[in-house]
C-alpha cells in the first residue's frame, strides 16, 4: 500500500553549511508532501501555506540538529505535524494534548451502516462533490487519528515511519489507524448509500 517516492540524494554536509542549492533541492523535493499534510490536517489553504513556510524556516534554522538517524522526509513531517497540532491547540478554547484529544474519541469502530457502495463508478466516487465530502470527513476525525491516517494512507509511510514521526508506539499507530479508517468508512457509507439506493431498480 505504501507509495515509494525516490529522490536524488541531498548532500547533508552542504545542507549543514547552508548551501542554497542543496536547500532549494530539499524544498523542491518535499514541499508538495508537506503542503498536502498541512492542508489535510488544517483544512484551510492559508493555514497550510503558513505551516509550509514555518516548517522549512525551522528546518533551515535547525539543520545542525538533524543527526541523519531518520530520513529527511521523516524529520520534515515531524516538524510540520507538530506545527499543525500546535496551531490546532492554540485555536481551541482550552488546551488539550494529543492524548487528551485521543481520549475524546468514543473508541467505537462498530459499523452501523452495512450498505455496499463499492459498485458505484470511480467517476462518481471521486467527483468534486464526493471529494469535498471526503475532505470534510477527514476533518471530522480527531487530530490524533487524523494525523496517523494521513501519514499512513495518504502519504504512504510505513507503520514504523509513522511511529517515528509521531514518537508513539507502532501498536498505537495501528489502533489509531483502525479507528480512523472505520470512522471514515462509516461516514462515506452515509454519503454514498443514498446514491446506491437511488440507482437500484
Amino acid at each position, binding site marked *: 500500500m505504501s507509495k515509494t517516492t525516490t529522490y536524488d540524494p541531498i548532500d547533508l554536509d552542504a545542507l549543514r553549511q547552508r548551501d542554497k542549492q542543496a536547500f532549494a533541492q530539499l524544498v523542491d523535493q518535499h514541499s508538495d508532501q508537506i503542503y498536502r499534510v498541512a492542508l489535510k490536517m488544517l483544512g484551510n489553504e492559508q493555514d497550510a501555506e503558513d505551516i509550509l513556510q514555518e516548517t522549512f524556516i525551522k528546518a533551515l534554522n535547525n539543520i545542525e540538529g538533524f543527526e541523519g538517524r531518520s530520513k529527511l522526509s521523516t524529520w520534515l513531517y515531524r516538524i510540520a505535524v507538530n506545527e499543525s497540532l500546535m496551531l490546532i491547540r492554540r485555536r481551541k478554547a482550552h488546551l488539550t494534548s494529543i492524548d487528551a484529544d485521543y481520549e475524546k474519541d468514543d473508541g467505537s469502530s462498530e459499523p452501523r451502516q452495512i450498505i455496499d457502495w*463499492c459498485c458505484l463508478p470511480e467517476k462518481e466516487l471521486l467527483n468534486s462533490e464526493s471529494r469535498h465530502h471526503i475532505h470534510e470527513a477527514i476533518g471530522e476525525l480527531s487530530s490524533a487519528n487524523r494525523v496517523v491516517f494521513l501519514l499512513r494512507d495518504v502519504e504512504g509511510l510505513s507503520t514504523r515511519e509513522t511511529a517515528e514521526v509521531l514518537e508513539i508506539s507502532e501498536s498505537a499507530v495501528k489502533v489509531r489507524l483502525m479507528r480512523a479508517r472505520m470512522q471514515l468508512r462509516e461516514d462515506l457509507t452515509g454519503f454514498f448509500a443514498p446514491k446506491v439506493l437511488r440507482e437500484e431498480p
Partner: protein
Amino acid sequence: MTHEHYLDCPEILSRLSDYIDGDLDQDLCYEIEAHLEGCSKCKIVLNTLQKTIHIVQVDGQKTHIPSDVRQRLFEQLDLDQDDQ
C-alpha cells in the same frame, strides 16, 4: 496456532485494518477469510473499508502545492527556484 473459539463479527471487524495491511499471521488470515465466506455483513465492511482507503489515496494524489504558494515559499526562504 489453534484458536479455542471461532472469532465473532466484532472480533473479525476489529482486525480488518491489520488484515488489509498484511499484519496478521497466516492462521488468523485463514480464519478471517473463512468467516468472510459466510458473513455478508463483514464482507461488505471489508470491501467498503478497502474502497474508502483507495478513494482517499486517489484524492490525496490529486492534491498538489499550487504554483503561487510554491513561488512564495522560495521567495520567503530567499531561494532560487531554478537552483535545484
